[in-house]
């Protein structure tokens, strides 16, 4: 347990000292600010546009951060053999993976929190005051975080297997496909029995990112029902557990360079 905490804190410190993170966060703020502009050149969508643009910015830049640090952090350890320092100590390989994962999630949470604060600052600036209805974006942020932790899990898995460039491509591809599962399913409906079964199987096994997307409803001020929050959180937790288990299994017997 102690060792997991040590690795998590170390991973967090390491990513916080990554300069790219700051650039991405700054761009996120720029985009959130652009939400004010969008509302002013349009009609009747001031708040909606701000929330849409703000949440989309947090989501997109969060995605970049998740993929970037998710892949580079583990790959760097292996490539630069700093991993020797860790695994020669009383640290199980599973503990290493879990520690890294938690450290990355912590980084994501902190980054997202910072961007969310900025978002609410702009929203407050635009609306003058905030009310209970403005909690809806917070729920959307929670779902964005769930998506991002899933992405980190996927990135970790791939980086235990392949090079960073390939891992980035695979992770991004999985994210895109995960958003299009509905279409995949529809494609299956129109195909022969074998293909339909295959596609149905795939849509059940692949991560359902679309289900975790809440930006548009949040912009309308719609709150997600509590039961849905619970069920989706559970799905994310289970899927992440599966990803981490797979990563650990692969990593357990891997010869280090």
């Amino acid at each position, binding site marked *: 347990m102690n060792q997991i905490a040590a690795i998590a804190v170390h991973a967090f410190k390491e990513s916080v000292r990554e300069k790219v993170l700051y*650039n991405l966060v700054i761009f996120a703020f720029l985009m959130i600010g652009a939400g004010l502009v*969008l509302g002013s050149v349009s009609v009747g969508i001031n708040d909606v546009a701000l929330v849409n643009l703000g949440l989309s910015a947090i989501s997109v830049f969060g995605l970049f951060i998740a993929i970037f640090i998710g892949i580079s952090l583990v790959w760097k350890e292996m490539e630069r053999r700093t991993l020797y320092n860790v695994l020669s100590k009383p640290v199980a390989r599973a503990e290493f993976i879990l520690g890294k994962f938690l450290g990355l999630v912590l980084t994501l949470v902190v980054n997202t929190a910072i961007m969310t604060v900025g978002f609410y600052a702009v929203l407050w600036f635009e609306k003058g005051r905030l009310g209970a209805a403005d909690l809806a974006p917070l729920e959307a942020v929670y779902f964005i975080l769930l998506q991002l932790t899933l992405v980190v899990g996927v990135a970790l898995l791939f980086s235990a297997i392949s090079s960073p460039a390939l891992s980035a491509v695979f992770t991004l591809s999985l994210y895109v496909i995960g958003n299009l599962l509905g279409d995949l399913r529809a494609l299956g409906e129109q195909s022969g029995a074998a293909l339909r079964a295959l596609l149905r199987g795939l849509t059940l096994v692949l991560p359902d990112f679309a289900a975790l997307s809440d930006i548009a409803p949040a912009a309308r001020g719609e709150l997600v029902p509590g039961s849905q929050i619970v069920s989706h959180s559970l799905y994310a937790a289970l899927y992440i557990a599966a990803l981490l288990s797979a990563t650990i299994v692969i990593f357990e017997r891997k010869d280090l360079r």
Partner: protein
Amino acid sequence: MLVLALAGSVALRIRLERESTRAEVTPVMYVTSGATLRRLSLGHQGLLADLYWTRAVQYFGRQKLSGTGDYRDLGRLLRISTELDPHLLIAYRFGAIFLAENPPAGAGRPDEALALLRRGIAANPSYWRLWQDLGFIYYWDLKNYPQAASALEAGSRQPGADLWMKTLAASVAAQGGELATSRLLWFQVYSQAGNESIRQSAREHLAAIKTAEDMAQLNKLLVEFGQREGRPASSIDDLVRAGMLPGRPADPSGVPYEVGNDGKAALGPGSRVDLQMAR
């Protein structure tokens, strides 16, 4: 990563700026399927809907300014916006009014307006104002009073509907086409208008309706004068001198009415009222 993010945000800004300064009449739209766009947006369809809606608004503004009366892409832009976000209510409402309005104020396509509103109602069945807009188009642009009445009636049954919906439904059923009914409808539009464009349009319609009512009233007086004096009035002053009017009435644009060559009430020179807008 940096370059990507920078390029993305810069592209967004350029696009927004380009929308407001572009002079060409027909914007080229590479992707015309809302469903495809929705797929490509990966969860950001709300933002994309907002962007397309903004494009629609700016397109309309530009075309209106140019005075050509060419709004051929308006329908498509509105359709895409609402396909991306079926709950973008302002797109349905705005779209309905300006799609249905006759050129040069609008696209003159009440059929497209109806289609848009029907889709809006399908996605937002309990939003009563869409029924109101539907009723309005049937009444005003299609002169289909029975359909208008039933739309208004359906709307009046939705949660949160204003009480006048029921009354209006009844009026339309009974006296569709009457100026008084029209005035009621346009007054609703005026008082609910969320933006100046719509409010201005409603103001013009109300002015035209008032003028039509005034002129009908004046015509009645002119007939009375003719019967009483045995000769047609040559000017409004005749009516004033006959004590039928307290003074020379003016139309809503401030120009006094006159008597036309056909002996009926007419607009004075320089009047800014467009009588076409009364029907």
